[in-house]
């Protein structure tokens, strides 16, 4: 640990990030940037391997040789692969994602609105799923080995392996078509209106994703709460006559929250993949559905941009989760030298 400067030795010394922690955070970020660089090469090489000529694909078979040559020159298609890679990467870093091969617009405009829609979807999925999952975990831990705990853990176990599209289709059957019809079965958002005025369309995909992420969070919360509830400080609090509700929420949970937090972060990263399938099930116009249509249309620039975007978010969330967990866990924080 770093010595606190003498000047700040007042009753409340200013909080400083200790040097080892800072080093750890920087290492994670640098490693993340390196990994992202490797991924950009992978994505570029992979999509370069695609058979077919991008110029012909975009301009059509009837294009004149002059037009094709101009197109290739404009997109650096006849340069060596390494130069192409660096000019592509340079454009990418400036936010120029190129032009969609299947739509007459730039990839940036194509996916701009989609990103907003996906963010709203993930936000709702988290707002619905995470609090319920944490509550279930806490109650299961409290009533460990009781009927509620066994029922929950059995249900969770069943849900844990279910593919998202099975959850989505089952919810459609239950809530949107055959059993009761209270929600729309597809989520075709009207792009002219704000998404906030069409929230009913977001609910079903959000429920689906919430159910998909809940099992892992419930399990982690339950396990860490059980550990916390067996501790001496909880026994002490109970002996002092602290109310059980307060023991659970004020004593045990804050100490059990690091693994739960980790589980939440991993689930958020996981949602990026789950969203691809769920958005397709409900035809929800987000990043995932855009990726599926881009692949169907073999639209290279869009595929590249979307895959990089998804991995970037995934990586950022994982790194943020690692760093925050380390900060939140005194044992990990103080071990650092």
């Amino acid at each position, binding site marked *: 640990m770093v010595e606190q400067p003498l000047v700040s030795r007042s009753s409340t010394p200013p909080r400083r990030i200790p040097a*080892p922690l800072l*080093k*750890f955070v920087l*290492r*994670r970020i640098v490693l993340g940037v390196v*990994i*992202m660089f*490797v*991924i950009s090469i*992978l994505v570029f090489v*992979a*999509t370069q*391997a695609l058979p077919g000529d991008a110029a012909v694909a975009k301009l059509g078979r009837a294009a004149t040789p002059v037009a094709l040559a101009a197109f290739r020159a404009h997109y650096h298609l006849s340069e060596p692969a390494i130069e192409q890679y660096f000019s592509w990467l340079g454009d990418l870093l400036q936010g120029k994602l190129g032009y969609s091969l299947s739509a007459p617009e730039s990839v940036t405009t194509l996916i701009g609105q989609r990103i907003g829609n996906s963010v709203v979807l993930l936000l709702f999925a988290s707002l619905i799923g995470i609090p319920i999952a944490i509550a279930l975990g806490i109650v299961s831990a409290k009533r460990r080995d009781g009927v509620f705990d066994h029922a929950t853990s059995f249900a969770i*176990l*069943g849900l*844990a*392996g*279910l*593919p*998202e*599209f*099975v959850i989505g*289709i*089952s919810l459609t*059957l239950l809530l949107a*078509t*055959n059993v009761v019809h209270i929600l729309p079965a597809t989520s075709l958002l009207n792009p002219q209106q704000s998404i906030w005025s069409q929230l009913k369309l977001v609910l079903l995909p959000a429920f689906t994703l919430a159910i*998909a*992420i809940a099992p*892992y969070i419930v*399990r*982690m919360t339950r*396990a860490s709460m059980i550990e916390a509830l067996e501790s001496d400080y909880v026994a002490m609090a109970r002996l002092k006559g602290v109310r059980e509700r307060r023991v659970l929420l004020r004593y045990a949970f804050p100490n059990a929250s690091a693994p739960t937090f*980790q589980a939440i972060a*991993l*689930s958020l*990263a*996981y949602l990026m*993949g*789950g969203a*691809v*399938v769920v958005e397709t099930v409900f035809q929800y116009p987000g990043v995932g559905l855009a*990726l599926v249509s*881009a*692949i*169907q249309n*073999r639209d290279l620039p869009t*595929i590249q941009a979307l*895959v990089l975007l*998804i*991995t970037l978010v*995934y990586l950022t969330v*994982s790194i943020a989760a*690692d760093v925050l*967990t*380390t900060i939140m866990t005194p044992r*990990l924080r103080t*071990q*650092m*030298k």
Partner: protein
Amino acid sequence: MTDAGAAAIEQAELGPVGGTAAATPPIPGVAAGGGWGLVLRSSLRFGRTRLGLVIVVVIVLVAVVGPFVAPYSPYQFVAAPYAPASSHIVLGADELGRDVLSRFLHGGYVILILATLATVLGVGIGTIFGITAAYRRGALDELIMRSFDVLLCFPAVVFALLLISVLGSKLWLIVVAVALTHAPQVARTMRGAAVQLTGREFIGYTEALGIRTWRVVFGEILPNVTAPLTVELGLRMTWSIGIVASLDFLGFGRQPPAADWGLMINENRAGLTIQPWGVVAPVIAIALLTIGCSLIADGLGRAAAGIEREVDTSREP
């Protein structure tokens, strides 16, 4: 990386990064001497595991025996599109007027084969690289594990879709893609289990004899990590089924007119309100299959953890 940093990451990465989530079972130690046989047998003590096994056996039987008992060919037109269930078509007709029951009975075995191959290949790659990394340590360890870290940054479905977008949807590619999404996490688990072994005397002995790496890996270390290996197989099988079925559903797996559970769900969705069986039957089958596999994987994990605990306590003075 500092030890503390590594410990933090280990701690931070306790869970499966890409998966829905059955929490990763505790890595059973070396001492799970009984290996996979013992793990399998002790897992059957749990009622849930037996239930899972029964469910999986039933679905596998439906998928394997189904094609032989199907009343019609899966491609034969037997009624009007979305014709309701009647005496000669028990589950009604699909969007083109083919028999839903016959297509259902034909539609499972390919998913099972692909998922099994992907699981075996993925767990195999992960195990070999994980154990080799643990045994050799040093630069090779770093190279293997850091390369897998890169793969871990792709969500499973996105990685599979990227490969498919490049090479087209081919069945072998689906197996390889799904296997590659499993390998990094498996390698991490198996490396963790094998690292505990590498300091032991019998490994040092093989080194003194100058035995080659691959013989130590396969002959000495592998037989001692079969307990975590069994657990990984159970867990990965659940996710393989999920990803393979999802790719079929998205239209990047088997192509029409193939009879396939994932594809059937996609094809018959438009008629959900008129004739739900084309969707309901395959949804139930895939759901039961993954639930059964999860139950088995959970039992295996508990059994492996329990075996370790028993051995541990027996060692105490």
